[in-house]
Structures are given as structure tokens and as C-alpha cells.
């Protein structure tokens, strides 16, 4: 097994583990605000690891850039979504 194969497997497995953590958090955390942590941190980290693993697997610079772009956009969207939803939920609980 070459070093890139090992690296890909390790990174993709790490990514899947973070997705699992995100899902467990979504299911087990007690309220909306704590569940937002599961949502916006764990799964985007998982996506980042999977992108990194696939970039190693693909082995081309343009492919890696494309994956990095996907990840960057996903984080942008997650940031805004988390903010919007948290504020919406705050408003509800204040009433």
C-alpha cells in the first residue's frame, strides 16, 4: 500500500467519524442551541477531512483546488445558517 492510499483511508475515515459525531450530537443533545454545535462544527470538519482525503486520492492540483473551494463555500454557508437559525431560535425562546 502506498503512502497516499494510507493517507486517503485515514482522512476519509476521520471525516466519516466526524459525520457520525455530528449525527449523534443532533440526536442526543438536549436543546436547539447545543444541537447547532453538532451541526455547524462536526459535519463541516467531516466534510473538510473527506475533501482532503479525496484531494490526496485524486492527486491533481486542480482537483484539490476544486475540493477546497467546495469546502470553503460549505463553511461560508454553514456560518450564516448557524447564525440565522440561532437568532431565530433565540427570538422564539424570548417570547
Amino acid at each position: 500500500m502506498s503512502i497516499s492510499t494510507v493517507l486517503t483511508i485515514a482522512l476519509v475515515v476521520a471525516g466519516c467519524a466526524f459525520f457520525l459525531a455530528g449525527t449523534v450530537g443532533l440526536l442526543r443533545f438536549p436543546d436547539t442551541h447545543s444541537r447547532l454545535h453538532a451541526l455547524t462544527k462536526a459535519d463541516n470538519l467531516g466534510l473538510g477531512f473527506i475533501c482532503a482525503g479525496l484531494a490526496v486520492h485524486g492527486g491533481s492540483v486542480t482537483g484539490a483546488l476544486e475540493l477546497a473551494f467546495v469546502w470553503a463555500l460549505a463553511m461560508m454557508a454553514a456560518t450564516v445558517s448557524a447564525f440565522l437559525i440561532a437568532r431565530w431560535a433565540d427570538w422564539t425562546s424570548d417570547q
Partner: protein
Amino acid sequence: MDSFLMGAALFLLVNLGVGLTRLYRGPEPADRVQALLLFTTTTVAMLLLLAHAEGSPALIHVALVFVMLAAIASIAFVQLPHRIPEE
């Protein structure tokens, strides 16, 4: 290697199925939308894995379109009134 990537995609699919219970149970509307956002990220990861497992680079563009439009759901959601009747 391809079957490993396929296995990872399968794992994420099962993960998504388990997460559906949160979407279904709620209880708050915000919880359901959070589950939707988690599924969007999971779908993006699955599409990337499938793109590499099946050697079909166009699927990366599909993933790109999904992440670009991921915020629309939450922007549309927060414009709903804070008291949603009947839910």
C-alpha cells in the same frame, strides 16, 4: 480503493437515515431545519465520494451547486413567523 470510497458513501447514507429521526421528531421547527442542513453537508460529502468512486467528475459540480445554494433554505426559513401554528 473504489470500494472503500463506496463504503464510506454507504456509511454516510446510513448516517443520514439515522439522522432523519431528528427531522421527524422535531420538536422545534429550528431542529428540523438543522437536520436538513446536516443532510445537505452529508449529501455533498457523498456526492464527492461517488464522484471519485465512479470516476465521474461532473458530480463534483453537483456538490458545488448544493453548497452554493445551501444557505437559501435557512434564509427562507428565518423569514417564517416565530410562532408556527399547528406544528
